[in-house]
């Protein structure tokens, strides 16, 4: 994904939304082994952050990672195929929804352990620092991960070594069925983080340009040797924690309020139409091309082969010890 202009930000958010809603239906049909976590509603966090990064900057993410991965520049084809655990998937069908990644492209993976992406990304920042590269590493965590020790241990380490690190809280306000305000002492993540001695911000995670701006400034500081930044981006998850969840921990009114009045795609669409950066005709053709791209990704995943049995032990070790 090259973020060349404002329209490209909107297009990528549309790709993520259509990817998620399509994959959600396929999961209910039993096509996605292991299931998935839908990120609909959280597009602006992913696209805002990635559009402020260089292509060779590093990210590490969470169990809810399709949006981060697509926004980082991975194609719907390779991600959909991975959800189907096909050989053409980004992790060669070994990873499924929760283990998307490719070290060579600066994606150090999603994973199923709440908070782990922060530690992994902090380690990557340490590597960047050691080598003296002009890059940053971004660790994503959910609001649930705000109350995990690893998050704060990693942040402290990044502060004392002035690492080129950005911690982004993809704060969708719920950890499964637990509301963030009920379990977060102080109820002010940026204030909590600032106690560690770094620039810390609570921002509107449904405003793609605001997310982009705070990330770009954090990146500038990091590359200049000024150390890490903490960004808590407030957003909302429209669907259940995982596909198939039938939760009753929040009201339909609450969900409808976010969907109808605070949607990141609707807001940015209205903005681009009002400034004249996009015409209605641009929007219509963009939507059609996104739709075709996701349809093609499903066809690609459906028609791709399963991993061949002969490749069973591939990737189990580095190969450096002499094993195949």
């Amino acid at each position: 994904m090259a973020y060349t202009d404002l329209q490209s930000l909107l297009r990528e958010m549309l790709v993520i939304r259509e990817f998620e809603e399509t994959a959600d239906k396929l999961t209910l049909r039993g096509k996605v082994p292991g299931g998935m976590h839908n990120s609909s509603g959280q597009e602006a966090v992913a696209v805002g952050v990635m559009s402020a990064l260089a292509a060779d900057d590093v990210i590490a993410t969470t169990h809810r990672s399709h949006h981060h991965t697509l926004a980082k520049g991975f194609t719907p084809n390779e991600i959909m195929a991975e959800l189907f655990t096909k050989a053409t998937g980004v992790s060669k069908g070994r990873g499924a929804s929760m283990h998307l990644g490719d070290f060579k492209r600066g994606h150090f993976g999603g994973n199923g352990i709440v908070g782990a992406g922060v530690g992994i990304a902090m380690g990557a920042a340490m590597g960047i620092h050691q080598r003296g590269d002009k890059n940053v590493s971004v660790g994503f965590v959910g609001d649930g991960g705000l109350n995990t020790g690893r998050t704060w241990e990693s942040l402290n380490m990044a502060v004392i070594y002035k690492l080129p690190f950005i911690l982004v809280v993809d704060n969708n306000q719920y950890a499964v069925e637990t509301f963030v305000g009920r379990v977060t002492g102080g109820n002010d993540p940026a204030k909590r983080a600032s106690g560690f001695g770094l620039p810390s911000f609570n921002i509107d995670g449904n405003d793609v340009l605001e997310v982009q701006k705070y990330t770009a400034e954090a990146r500038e500081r990091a590359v200049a040797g000024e150390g890490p930044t903490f960004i808590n981006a407030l957003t909302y998850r429209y669907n259940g924690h995982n596909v198939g969840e039938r939760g009753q921990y929040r009201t339909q009114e609450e969900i409808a309020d976010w969907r109808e009045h605070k949607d990141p795609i609707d807001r940015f669409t209205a903005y681009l139409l009002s400034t004249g950066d996009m015409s209605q005709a641009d929007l219509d053709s963009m939507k059609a091309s996104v739709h075709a791209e996701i349809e093609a990704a499903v066809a690609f995943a459906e028609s791709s082969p399963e991993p061949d049995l002969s490749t069973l032990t591939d990737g189990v070790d580095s190969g450096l010890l002499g094993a195949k």
Partner: protein
Amino acid sequence: MEEVFVPALGMAMDNAVLLEWLKNPGDPVAAGDVIAVIETDKTTLDLTAETGGVLGKHRYQPNDEVPVGNTISVVLAPGEVE
């Protein structure tokens, strides 16, 4: 035409058992109406219509095992045929 199907809800769920039909072929159906009740390895579940219309054929009978993802009936909009 809306397909009413057995959703994959758990990590290791392969089949469900159809317990009961609450609507018959030709019955009018409103969005939110419970069409059938199924049982999975963890729970019983109401399958509801998302749209309104008329119910199509029963593709399974009570006590049948239904593979996850399979369609058990359809809700037909006016003018649609199965």
